[in-house]
């Protein structure tokens, strides 16, 4: 009994050491990449892209469902983007509230006829509208079919070579598009690029743009600020550098329209349509023997409001985990197949072992270690040592991320914010991380039972008051 437990404990420790080494390597790669970018940033003239008539035209697709309070302000915020050729397509995905009415009131919509430009299937379209006051705004009103279906509807009517997907309740930095499009300009093989998503809670929004960036008074939001920073600056940037990026956040990504249409558009049968599309692009392009350059670029920023209650956060993370499981299951044929390059032979096995099964193994590890200590197979001092080691490594990763943030972006300028984030890193490793492992383990159960859809996201701060109304907003408002 003791020997069996000890062998299991050793295996678990080996697993966590490998995982921590991978995370550590990712953080180091992230640091190297960001450091190089900071040094090269003066070489990039983003303002030129923002005013050049040769910059590729972009359509921003905004799927909206039940966004009556925020949609008009969100669109006003998007219209502030510094980009020369921009169209905004809002897809009202069968909202039962006044989303369409809010758009009609704000932008003087009138029905139009528009010929589809791509044969992408979607739920029936009820009507198309153009704005009398804003020529580059189009609204598609359709029957409810989910986010992926709404994006497919937008793709169906998109006429520009590139399209950008964002959530209806997110705020895009005015310079984000001219920065992210750079990746398409310097490498003609780029088919998709993702930007960093940051947590909005606590910051001040003025005129549809984030003005004063601070951490939140809500510690759950601060935990997510740190978590997002680590995921993007420590994880995705490294995967991108290695050419194995599997996830571009649905909250902000720029795609080559033709490549996505050729790959069949968004999959409406998954809750993780953003990641699934990226993986399908990898697959489709490689099966055709074409290069597939999918990158993450940390400078263009999109702001989103993070959940501030455990219940909503649990739903969100449950959905993310199920999306990951669905994506990996659907594309299981790519795993360990050299035909799909490093994506199939390295990234997918990593995601299966450490991201899909990771929470199960982590929860099992806590139970097993507890039992081992209880029956005397492992001494208290050893258990404490490894617990401290795990916690210390968590701190180290968080500090490394903060170091990257301070080196490159400094979006949280005050000492108070830094202090809060350091304090948050303590809380994160003592409770939050373990709770998330339980939530993600539960997602396995939900998935095996047949899934539970999207759930409802309750927003608190990003209301109509914090987003611009009318043409010349001048009153700052706080959110979060």
């Amino acid at each position, binding site marked *: 009994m003791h020997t069996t437990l*000890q062998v299991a*404990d050793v295996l678990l420790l080996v697993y966590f050491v490998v995982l921590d080494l991978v995370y550590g390597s990712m953080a180091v790669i992230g640091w190297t990449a960001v450091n*190089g970018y900071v*040094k*090269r940033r*003066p*070489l*990039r*003239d983003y303002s*030129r892209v923002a005013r*050049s*008539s*040769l*910059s*590729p035209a972009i359509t921003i697709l905004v799927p909206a469902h039940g966004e009556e309070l925020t949609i008009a302000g969100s669109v006003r915020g998007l219209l502030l983007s510094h980009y020369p050729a921009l169209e905004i397509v809002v897809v009202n995905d069968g909202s039962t509230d006044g989303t369409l009415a809010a758009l009609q009131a704000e932008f*003087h919509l*009138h*029905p*139009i*006829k*528009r*010929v589809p*430009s791509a044969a992408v299937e979607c739920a029936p379209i009820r009507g198309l509208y*153009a704005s*009398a*006051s*804003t*020529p580059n705004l189009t609204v598609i009103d359709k029957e409810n079919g989910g986010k992926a279906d709404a994006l497919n509807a937008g793709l169906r009517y998109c*006429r520009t070579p590139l399209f950008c997907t964002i959530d209806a309740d997110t705020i895009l930095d005015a310079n984000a598009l001219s920065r992210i499009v750079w990746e*398409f*300009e*310097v*490498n*003609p093989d780029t088919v998709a690029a993702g930007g960093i998503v940051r947590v909005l809670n606590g910051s001040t929004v003025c005129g549809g743009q984030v003005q004063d960036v601070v951490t939140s008074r809500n510690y759950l939001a601060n935990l997510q600020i740190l978590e997002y920073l680590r995921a993007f600056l420590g994880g995705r940037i490294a995967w991108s550098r290695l050419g194995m990026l599997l996830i571009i956040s649905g909250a902000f990504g720029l795609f080559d329209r033709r490549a996505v249409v050729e790959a069949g558009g968004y999959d409406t049968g998954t809750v993780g349509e953003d990641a699934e599309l990226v993986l399908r692009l990898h697959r489709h392009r490689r099966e055709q023997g074409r290069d597939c350059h999918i990158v993450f670029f940390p400078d263009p920023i999109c702001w989103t409001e993070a959940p501030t209650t455990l219940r909503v956060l649990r739903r969100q993370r449950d959905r993310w985990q199920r999306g990951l499981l669905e994506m990996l299951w659907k594309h299981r044929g790519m795993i360990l197949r050299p035909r799909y390059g490093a994506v199939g032979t390295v990234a997918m096995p990593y995601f299966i072992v450490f991201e899909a099964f990771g929470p199960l193994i982590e929860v099992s590890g806590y139970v097993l270690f507890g039992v081992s200590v209880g029956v005397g*197979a*492992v*001494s208290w*001092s*050893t258990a*404490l*040592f*490894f617990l*401290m*080691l795990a916690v*210390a*490594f968590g*701190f*180290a990763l968080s*500090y*490394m991320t*903060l*170091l990257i943030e*301070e*080196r490159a972006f*400094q979006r949280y300028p005050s*000492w108070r914010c*830094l202090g809060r984030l*350091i304090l948050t890193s303590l809380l994160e490793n003592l409770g939050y991380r373990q709770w998330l492992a339980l939530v993600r383990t539960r997602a396995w159960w939900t998935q095996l039972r047949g899934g539970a859809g999207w759930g409802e996201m309750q927003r608190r701060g990003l209301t109509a008051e914090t987003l611009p109304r009318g*043409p010349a907003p001048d009153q700052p408002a706080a959110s979060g």
Partner: protein
Amino acid sequence: MTVSPWWSAIFTVPLVGLLVAVVVRKALRDRAEPRRARRRAMLDDALRRHDVTPLARAATGGLWQQADVLAALEHGAPADVAAVHTALAETSAGAHVEVFLRAELRSRSPSRRGRAVLLAGTLRLRALQHGVARLHADPHPDVRLAACTALERYATSDSARHLVTALAAGRIGPSRIVERLAHPWAVGPLLALLPTIADGRVRAQLHRALGLAGDPLALPALRLAALGGTDEERICAVRALGQLGDPAAQAEVLTSLTDPVWEVRAQAATAAPAVAGAAAVGTLRVAMGDHAWWVRANAADALARLGPVGRAALQAVASGPDRYAAERAQEALWTTQAADASPPARRDEAA
């Protein structure tokens, strides 16, 4: 299975080290920002006084000093910048900068090469132009693009030739080079180079640049390419003719509306209102029945831009038997009517 707790020091020390690094980084950053602001003000002042010594000192300094020189020169008044170029060429400070940047152009660090390239171009150091041109084939994309920007700033026949070489190499998105060639100073060199270039794709991009430069000198070459070039050349030449908007090219543009390649027809449809005006209505109306989606779309938009006579043609197509043409005509009419119906204040704001 026991482990001594003393081992905890192994992970405690790096952890504390990282935490200190975060705090120190922030403190340094907080100190650096006012320093940079002071330096920028000093460089702006030196630029206004045409004093090259502080500029030369900063240009041979570190990352942020060089970035500040570039910012000062890019945002400075043209007359001041021109005076600095002259002063640099005449003083020993200029020679010192030149020696420094020549070495930096060969640096192993992409960021140092890139900054050196930009500084050489922005300061118009003629002696370094050849070294700058070499870097349009640099392994790093940011350096390649910086080299193209520097060549644009030189604004010479040689730099135009080097940009065309970069275009032919295909390692940078063609649009980024075309926009750097789309200047009056480049028109002469491009017209001289056109007959010597064998690759039709490169010639096509040069036609784009000529169209954007908007110089009527390019008209004969573009008219010739619109009818006799490769597919890609014809597409770009017809688009360029539309940008020039010279009625002398009416025959070429209207003929291109019947080109066998749909992309040429689509571009001709867009160009027609600017070049042929109301004379294009009949041909555009025929183009509304084209089998290619984009030709129909562009022809409808073109007719909508032609005012009442174009709208009358759209109305006729909208009630005609061709369903595809009718749909597109209806869409264009809807859009035009909506724009007309919008309140004047709102229209101004949108414009």
